[in-house]
């Protein structure tokens, strides 16, 4: 029986891995979560057959209560509030891991130094994840509005961590630790998590949640080791590892090294160099561009002189058609002075075979941008530069521009740091909702096409 259960746990772990793998591609993502869901149910059911189990009533009550509340809250919450829900559920996972450790300490089952060390580590990490996630939740939910830093934040962090480690060591050394040490240990760990998270704010939050998520994974993995449960070990470590990687990816996509996220949060001190335009330019890959557009409802393509230089019009239209086959609405927006002659874009789009009814001029489309999911700017620069609206000293001040910056997402295709005709910096590129897709238009749109095709099932 027990062997069978172990075997089942292994199977569950494998399905988890496959599920996660599936979740990393838009095409298979939904399948992935459903598989993982079944695996979870299987794991839970199997666990009831673990030899020597008691307290079934309490157990079922807890499951029904915890599961029910979470299920319900996850169902009703608004789509925009998803991130904080992820945070809070993650915190609960961390809490559960910590609680397992606590119970192990309480039962005083000595398992040797390795096991104890792992248990303590798991408890520490789990607690940090728990309190950290709670803070993250509070911030995102708007319960906690101000991001504050202690005067010597980093020092305090180090001290607290040191204390936690000392207490942890104490627990490991004393086979059956006094409750007071255990409680102190948990309190310090919880405080540490809270203090670490408090100063972080704004756009960095998702990165932090992802990091805490990886922490919880680790904690679960460690506790799994203590319990000798393969499902926990494998799933925990895999989540720990993939979560760490994911955190890095997310940080990279935002152009913020993880170090900075944690130690010099955005809302903190000034960002350094005295650039007139704030923010950073954030790159994205052709794959990203493809998936963002493929799963959008409405994409507006803004061609500019760069598309003409690259001769990319045929590719661009091919991409647009592919997206349309996928159910995406694709329009073209032509700025009055895009290109280098009146009608420059018209000539090219006509050459590529774009029908006239897909082509809109600035006046017709400018009001729509707030409803646009993705504005794809291909080799245009000046004509989408918001500086024209705001900066009186700019040579392009007063020129009406296409309001692409008001779209949910902006993707800008260009080869590098080249400026436009007027030779000035473009504030659009530094906006939060803007991502740069570097490459010559012809070639990079070709790559996007390949990825869009791969996303068709």
């Amino acid at each position, binding site marked *: 029986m027990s062997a069978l259960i172990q075997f089942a746990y292994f199977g569950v772990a494998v399905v988890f891995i496959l*599920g996660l793998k599936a979740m990393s591609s838009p095409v298979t993502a939904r399948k992935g979560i459903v598989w993982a869901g079944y695996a979870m149910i299987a794991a839970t059911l199997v666990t009831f057959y673990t030899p*020597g189990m008691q*307290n*079934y009533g309490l157990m079922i009550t*807890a499951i029904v209560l915890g599961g029910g509340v*979470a299920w319900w809250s996850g169902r009703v919450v608004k789509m925009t509030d998803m991130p904080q829900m992820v945070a809070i559920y993650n915190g609960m996972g961390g809490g559960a891991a910590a609680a397992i450790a606590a*119970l192990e300490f309480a039962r005083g089952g000595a398992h040797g130094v390795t096991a104890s060390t792992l248990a303590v580590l798991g408890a520490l990490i789990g607690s940090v994840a728990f309190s950290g996630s709670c803070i993250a939740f509070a911030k995102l939910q708007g319960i906690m509005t101000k991001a504050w830093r202690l005067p010597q934040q980093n020092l305090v962090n180090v001290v607290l961590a040191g204390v936690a480690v000392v207490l942890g060591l104490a627990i490991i050394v004393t086979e059956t630790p006094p409750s007071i040490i255990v409680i102190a240990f948990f309190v310090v760990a919880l405080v540490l998590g809270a203090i670490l998270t408090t100063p972080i704010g704004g756009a960095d939050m998702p990165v932090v949640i*992802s990091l805490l998520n990886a922490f919880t994974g680790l904690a679960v993995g460690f506790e799994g080791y203590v319990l000798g449960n393969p499902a926990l070990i494998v799933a925990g470590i895999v989540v720990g590892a993939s979560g760490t990687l994911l955190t890095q990816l997310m940080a990279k996509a935002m152009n913020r090294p993880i170090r900075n996220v944690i130690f010099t949060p955005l809302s903190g001190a000034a960002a350094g160099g005295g650039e007139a335009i704030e923010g950073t330019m954030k790159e994205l890959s052709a794959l990203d561009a*493809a998936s963002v557009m493929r799963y959008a409802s409405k994409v507006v393509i803004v061609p500019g002189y760069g598309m003409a230089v690259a001769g990319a019009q045929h590719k661009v239209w091919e991409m647009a058609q592919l997206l349309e086959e*996928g159910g995406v609405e694709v329009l073209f927006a032509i700025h009055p002075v895009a290109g280098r002659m009146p009608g420059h874009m018209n000539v090219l789009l006509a050459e590529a075979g774009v029908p006239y009814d897909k082509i809109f001029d600035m006046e017709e489309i400018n009001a729509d941008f707030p409803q646009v999911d993705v504005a794809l700017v291909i080799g245009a620069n000046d004509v989408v530069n918001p500086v024209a609206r705001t900066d009186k000293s700019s040579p392009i001040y007063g020129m009406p521009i296409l309001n692409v910056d008001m779209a949910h997402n902006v993707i800008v295709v260009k080869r590098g740091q080249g400026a436009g005709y007027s030779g000035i910096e473009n504030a659009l590129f530094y906006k939060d909702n803007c991502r740069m897709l570097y490459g010559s238009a012809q070639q990079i749109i070709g790559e996007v096409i390949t990825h869009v095709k791969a996303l068709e099932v």
Partner: protein
Amino acid sequence: MLAAFTGYEVISRVPVILHTPLMSGSNFVHGVVLVGAMVVLGHADPADPAQLAIGFVAVFLGAANAAGGYVVTERMLAMFKSKAGGAK
């Protein structure tokens, strides 16, 4: 080690739009901590209320992690339903 390696392997190329759903998905996966929680609660001393309480909390939190993680992930991923069907 192998598991860690797999973790890296699993998500080498993830499009940005999947970052949050994937985070949520792995959040769900570590909800398997529920199993551990059940085991410790199952082996807790029925006579020691402290143990029972902690165990209860563990299972409660674990179940919430699993259930909530699932629902939220599933909802996020629903938007990746192929739209082509509707369009054609």
